[in-house]
């Protein structure tokens, strides 16, 4: 009987280990950003403190998301420094007129409709409420993509169980719903899906 318990326990342990440790590594593949962009350096050197200075709204209220290369070209029209990533940015993207193919951590699928205008302008949410604080990050975060669904890992969040996730970690539908429920906002499916 004790041998059975041991063997059973061994099986249990192997499965738990595989599930909690090996599985997440196998499920997500890591991809490098095309250019190593550091929020902190840019904030310090340029004195930008407001996210909206680069991540701006268009005139019609649509959120423009990541700044286009035109914005980068303001300073990086030619090499500043000698780093490899600088060379990539300037030679490969800015000079060739090709937009930098940034990997967007918070990219939602096509069926989601999310209006930054409603959340930021009307409801007054801060960027960090959903995105976490990026402004002072001094290293490039690894972009992890789910091999099955193709989603960025930020959507599920970094906690595998999602039970102990920090605020701003996770952008699944249930996260939107939680926030809406807390604020007593009811939008229905139509509110967020297209």
């Amino acid at each position, binding site marked *: 009987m004790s*041998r*059975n318990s041991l*063997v*059973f*326990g*061994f*099986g*249990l*342990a*192997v*499965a*738990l280990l*595989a*599930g*909690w440790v090996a*599985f*997440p590594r196998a*499920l997500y593949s890591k991809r490098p950003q095309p250019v190593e962009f550091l929020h902190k350096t840019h904030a310090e050197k340029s004195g930008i403190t407001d996210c909206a200075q680069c991540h701006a709204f*268009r005139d*019609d209220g*649509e959120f*423009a998301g990541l700044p286009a290369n035109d914005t980068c070209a303001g300073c990086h029209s030619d090499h500043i420094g000698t780093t490899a990533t600088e060379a990539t940015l300037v030679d490969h993207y800015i000079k060739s007129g090709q937009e930098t193919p940034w990997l967007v951590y918070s990219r939602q*699928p*096509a*069926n989601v409709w999310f209006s930054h205008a409603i959340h930021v302008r009307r409801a007054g949410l801060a960027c960090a409420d959903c995105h976490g604080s990026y402004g002072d990050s001094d290293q490039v975060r690894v972009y992890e993509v*789910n091999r*099955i*669904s*193709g*989603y960025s890992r930020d959507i*599920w969040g970094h906690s*595998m*169980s999602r039970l102990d996730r920090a605020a701003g970690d996770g952008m699944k539908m249930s996260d939107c719903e939680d926030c809406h429920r807390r604020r007593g906002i009811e939008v229905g499916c139509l509110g967020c899906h297209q």
Partner: protein
Amino acid sequence: MKVTRRDLFVWGAGAAAGMVFSPVPWKLLDDVSIWTQNWPWIPQPPHGPIEVKQSFCTLCPQGCAMKVKMAGGCPVGVAGVSGNPVTRGALCPLAFGVHQLNWHPQRLRAVRHKRVSSSWSEARAAFAKACGEGPIVIVDGRPGSAASSVLASFAEEQKGSYRVALSLETRALLPYEAMVSPVIPASALGYDLERAQTIVSFGAPLLDGWGIPGRFTRLWSERAAGMSEPQLRLIQIEDSLSRTATRAWRWVAIRPGSKNALAAGLARVLVEEHLVSARGPLSALTVSDAALQTNLSESAIRDLARTMVAKPPVLAIAGDERPEIAALNFILGSVGSPGGIVRRSKPTEKYELANAAIPNARAVLIDASVPWDYAPPTDAEIFRFAAWDGGSNRADWLLPAPGFLEEFTDVNSAPTSAVETYGVAPQLTKPMFEIHSAAQFLSAIDSSFTNPETIIHQRCADLFRERAGTVYGQEIMPVAELDSAQKFEAELSKAALWVADAPKSASLLCELKEWPSTSPAESPRNWSAAWAAAVLPPLATKLYRESSLREAPDRRTA
């Protein structure tokens, strides 16, 4: 220690129990279902900022104004321009799918010589050689445009001929050319629909995109639809219950092929019963003859004649070239009077028609504005410009022309319009392949020709100089109030429409010597056949197939 089968069993049970408490099954379940929501083979719409721009549809001679939604540099949606005084926000159904046409599988991507890939330089060389060897014929579908003047002057230069393939609506106006003096070409005539109170249509598909889609439908829906005593009486004379007949105030069902007889009968009643003041030659046909031929009773014809004139002005419209109907209009006094056939623009030259025989030509160049199903009556070498390959028609050289919104061009008055208009269709999308319009092709052969852009610029300057008419853009501005020619041209480049002032006098001198004896056989044609594009938008093909609303046009079902 020996591993027994039992151990494996127990181990498996433990592993299974462990799996339940690991994220594996649950996360996989979730991810796999998310995968089904984002299958990688499902196309994704484009990203990018959305802009709404304006232009004109150049796929048929009507030149309707359209708003084009652009995303990431591609047109992603089309809508009518409500401020446009001609279309009044309406478009034909096909227009709602035109933004997909440029990717149509039958899009011409490269020059083809006898169905084999070739190059522009070879095509130019071949055409230059043909020009040197004999007379050439150039066929145009939208006469009067800037590009047309390049085509016409090239033909003149080469001692060849310039011919036009007229739209059905304009061809219906051809019989009036012989009636009015001084001679006014059919392309300078129009219908004053807005002021007509009774419209008698002899099989013209008035509610089916006839004339300018939107012009008549809007008029009808405001003044005739669903009213028991409409302000505009639409009487449809047709052998079958067509879409227009369905919706008309009165549908007069006659025997196929008896429209001329009915027109003659009606004219006789009108004159004999003194229902009209005009007197004119009548057909030899008696009312009872007409009744016999049309399968209507004699009294029905008389009733119809009385109903027609009960609410003047009356305008008879033919669906095709039909001198009898022109004669009837003459009897009714509708030629050159308000609510009738009116002169739209200054008299210009008469065009040589494309369907006349083309003898002794060395080569025929067909512009992309000519409907695909036009086949020149010749065995000369054919250079055909087209954006799409329509399949069956003979062409020695197939030359890829600009597709939807890929060309900067100008748009003249639509065929049935009662007023003169002018618009400039800006190029909104970059061409995806090496494409040239016929005018560009000819300019490349002989660079002495002014290019269409300069001609458009010139025309804008000319129009501004006259200080007449009104510009319909974001706002309505009389030309007289504009500061400069540059401002005028800038407005037009944003697809504003210039509309001439209404002619002061509509009257025309006209005369009918004798009742026309015969007229060409009826040519039942689908309205979409007037379209210049060789293929239909895929969504229109879908409409044809998936709804019972329309029968698929025979050659365009692919």
